[in-house]
């Protein structure tokens, strides 16, 4: 099955939203306007968008420290996300979580996660919940190539296969774990670790949103129909540093060649999709530019909203620790 033309356009919109939000975050982080660390998803947008386009609002996802893309792809509100990263009380987590913890339970976004591998088991629990209640929901665990070396990966493969839980593992092979090339810390193929459980496994070009969309549609359908978990590895590339201002951390150290980044820029998933849309005659280049301009406005609004919002309420810290209980 292929995405329809209108689905392709909405993928383009979603990917562009992620990109423009993050370009803006990049600028603001560089200018020192944002508290905390910011890990950008630039270059990987096709994965979040392609997968989440196949999910219902009631489905669940768990995300990573690099979670803006997943949040927006799953329908999270740009304003609320932006305000969160700015540490404002209008933020989706009221300024308590920040970039690494954007979550929106009403959209099934169980949260970005600062712990590498932290999402696997949470997603497995959500899938168990879906299975037990028979509500036909699916849980998706997004994780990095680095996270695939955490043992919980195997544990959750085991549990979810054993109990046939509606869980889709989505590994984003972006070639790096911080400043460490993944290949230097990974033995064998990550997908083989999933294949060992005899579940459906697909390795796709993660910069080709159509390929991601198709693999996700199948995997999610498999899970939703009660057949158990499935696995997708999306091969992509982290264009930005591990975190913004990484040069400060690196102090002259180097872990990749500029050249390599430039090569991957040529495979930019948004340009590729744009080219496809134009070549298929679905939209003209001008129409796509209009879309981008409209989305730039959404981003602008989000920033304005964030800037204008009140800082977080420090006393809230004490109120939200527990439900109806003092800390």
């Amino acid at each position, binding site marked *: 099955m292929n995405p329809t033309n209108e689905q392709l356009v909405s993928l383009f919109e979603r990917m562009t939203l992620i990109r423009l939000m993050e370009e803006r975050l990049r600028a603001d982080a560089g200018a020192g306007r944002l508290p905390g660390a910011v890990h950008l998803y630039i270059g990987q947008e096709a994965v979040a968008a392609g997968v989440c386009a196949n999910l219902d609002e009631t489905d669940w996802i768990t995300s990573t420290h690099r979670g803006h893309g997943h949040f927006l792809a799953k329908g999270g509100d740009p304003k609320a996300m932006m305000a969160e990263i700015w540490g404002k009380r209008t933020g989706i987590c009221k300024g308590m979580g920040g970039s690494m913890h954007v979550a929106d339970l009403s959209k099934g976004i169980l949260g970005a996660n600062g712990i590498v591998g932290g999402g696997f088991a949470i997603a497995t629990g959500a899938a168990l919940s879906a299975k*037990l209640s028979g509500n036909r929901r699916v849980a998706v665990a997004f994780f990095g190539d680095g996270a695939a070396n955490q043992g919980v990966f195997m544990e959750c493969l085991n549990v979810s296969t054993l109990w046939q839980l509606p869980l889709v593992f989505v590994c984003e092979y972006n070639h790096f774990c911080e400043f460490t090339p993944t290949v230097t810390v990974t033995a064998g193929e990550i997908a083989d670790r999933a294949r060992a459980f005899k579940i459906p496994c697909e390795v796709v070009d993660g910069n080709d949103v159509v390929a991601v969309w198709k693999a996700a549609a199948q995997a999610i359908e498999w899970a939703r129909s009660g057949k158990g978990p499935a696995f997708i590895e999306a091969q992509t590339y982290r264009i930005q540093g591990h975190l913004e201002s990484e040069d400060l951390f690196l102090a002259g150290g180097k872990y990749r060649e500029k050249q390599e980044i430039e090569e991957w820029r040529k495979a930019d998933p948004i340009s590729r999709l744009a080219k496809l849309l134009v070549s298929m005659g679905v939209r003209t280049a001008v129409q796509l530019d209009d879309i981008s301009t409209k989305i730039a406005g959404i981003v602008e609004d989000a920033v304005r909203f964030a800037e204008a919002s009140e800082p977080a309420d420090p006393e809230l810290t004490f109120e939200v620790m527990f439900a109806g209980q003092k800390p």
Partner: protein
Amino acid sequence: MPRKRYIQAINEALFEEMERDPKVIVFGEDVELAIFGDTRGLLERFGHDRIRNTPICEATLAGMAVGAAVTGYHVVLHMMFSNFIYTGFDAIANQMAKLRLMTGGQIELPLTVIAGYGGGRSTAAQHSDTPHPLLMNLGGVNVLVPATPADAKGLLKQAIRTKNPSFFLEASGRGGDSGEVPDGDYTVPFGRAAIARAGADITMVAIGSMLKPALSAAEKLNLAGIDAEVVDPRTLVPLDEQTIVGSIEKTGRAILVDEARDRCSAASHIAAIIADKAFSSLKAPIKRVTVPNVSMPYAPNAESRVLPSEDRIVQIATDLVRSKQLA
């Protein structure tokens, strides 16, 4: 009131709560046949959807509990021996204890972790820890240490009705101890200490497994003309500081009895509270009777050497009351 065994009281609480609320589920390693006896019979009554054996993978079990709780179940996770809490500690300390704050209070985490703690049966270092201090320090989880069958039942039922994560720690060696248990449905509220024995000369705060030796020490002291008050905090998070401080205001002397290792123990923390909030009532140094800062040795004589004993309590209490009053 009928007399029941500690483990039976726990078992009843599970039965009753599972009857009451179909969203209560129980999982863990070997819960079906119930190595401790506390989950016995649940499978026959409630079936595999609501109680099931898991693979051995504590890291995943703890995270899965979080995921299932966030998405609508009340999870009772049985972790068997307390030392296995460490194996699942990432999900406990980084997710369970923090997720509510990080999401700005979006979620509820109705989950209960059961684990047996403490020594006395030569199970050696890896099966004898008393880990409540670590859990207390996390901030985000309730810590329950029932000492009697009645409190075990009432606190567990309360935990299962609470929207926050709670650790229900059962004294491993005390399953056979019996006591009066009220008939019918009741709960014991969190954060209310019990005066297990009223007295005028000295206050003993005895935690969980230590209530028994503290009470028998109090009887011995009574023969020697010392009238000890014994306070059982019942829950360490939340902690009923008021009752503890009130007791010291009456007696002027405090002994804290705790099966945890001494450093940063609950005994230390309660001593700190007393030294802060009941300072002006104090007539004598605050004493701790705890396990020294060693791992639990295997041989029975070595184990007795490090576990707090009735004799040690009597000795210290006697010294404290007999020594010159200072204020």
